[in-house]
């Protein structure tokens, strides 16, 4: 018990002595500690903020430039012309199963190729399973027979392609006077188009325009 009191008095005296001896240093050291604390708590976050603002400023400037450039690009596009182009691509690759259009094209191709149509059947697989690997377009397979030889079949396919440029013969079986042909037609439902004003929009390229011109030259349905 006595030892404890002696120790407390000794400690208090020691601290008091140390305080009086070093009190002149206390304020400057506190100020230095405050400065260090301020560096970590205020200055560093401010510097980080500044650089992130700098980045944001750069990004916003870029976005504004892209939006302005997109506006100019879009203002320069002739809407009537664009509608015509849309009509061409929608006819070449319809958004729906255009059975009417396909049947009409087959009948017209048969007439122009001077062949008589026999039986034909549609074979439409499961939509999800029959998506093509390359394009996500859906194929409709039609098996049809015509009264005609190989030359007539070739002529018939050529006429059919005039109307459906994307139609694709996958099998042809010709006997002396009858041919059975399997043809694929494609369609693709509308995708939702997300327009992001901050993403650069380019006008149609020369390659795209040339493909459009080729398609427009066909007798699209």
């Amino acid at each position, binding site marked *: 018990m006595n030892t404890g009191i002696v120790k407390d008095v000794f400690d208090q005296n020691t601290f008091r002595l140390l305080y009086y001896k070093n009190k002149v240093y206390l304020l400057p050291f506190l100020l230095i500690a405050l400065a260090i604390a301020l560096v970590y708590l205020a200055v560093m976050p401010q510097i980080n903020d500044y650089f992130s603002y700098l980045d944001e400023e750069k990004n916003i400037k870029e976005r504004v430039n892209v939006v302005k450039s997109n506006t100019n690009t879009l203002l320069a596009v002739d809407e009537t012309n664009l509608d015509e182009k849309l009509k061409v691509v929608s006819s070449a690759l319809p958004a729906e199963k255009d059975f009417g259009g396909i049947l009409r094209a087959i009948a017209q191709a048969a007439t122009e190729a001077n062949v008589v149509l026999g039986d034909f059947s549609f074979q439409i697989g499961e939509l999800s399973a029959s998506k093509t690997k390359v394009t996500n377009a859906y194929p409709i397979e039609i098996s049809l027979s015509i009264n005609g030889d*190989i030359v007539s079949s070739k002529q018939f396919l050529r006429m059919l392609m005039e109307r459906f440029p994307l139609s694709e013969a996958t*099998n*042809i079986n010709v006997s002396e006077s009858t041919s059975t042909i399997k043809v694929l037609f494609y369609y693709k439902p509308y995708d939702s188009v997300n327009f992001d004003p901050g993403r650069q929009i380019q006008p149609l390229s020369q390659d795209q325009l040339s493909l459009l011109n080729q398609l427009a030259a066909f007798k699209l349905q």
Partner: protein
Amino acid sequence: MNDKINLLKGSKAKRFRQEKILKIIRISSVVSLTLVVLTSLIFFFLKFRLGVESLKEKENAAISQITAVSKKAGKLLYAESRIKDISDILKKRSTFDGVITETVNVIPSNITVQSLNLDKKNLSMTITSSSLLSIDKLLNGFENLSENKKIFAKITLEGLTVDPKTGKYTISLTGNLP
């Protein structure tokens, strides 16, 4: 020797050194605090000068301008997407039509095609003709399609028969597409 025992002189020197250190520490503390405050102020004003808010206003104004033509943008993007799909289909499609055309072109007129089957991998056909010359022309034509035009990877003559009653030759051949 005297210096060593002169306690007063030694304590003065020590105090002088302590005062010097204290002075340095005081100056350092003030300078460091001033520097911190100055840096903080500099970055505050720099950030203030950036004007991100006014840029955001400009961006909003630009976006509201483009909204007026967003319908056109949708049409353009849709057309681009369709053209890409069409282009992809055209790229991956088989050269089937070309094969038919080339095959028909090498069949002489006095040859009758009894049967022909063409799929994505093979062509097999049976023809009849009373003229060996025409059959020779046909075979040469197929050879040309295989060797020069590379339409067929391989042509195989499956059989050649002759009907003595009609004098007609019948040949069967298959061609493997590349």
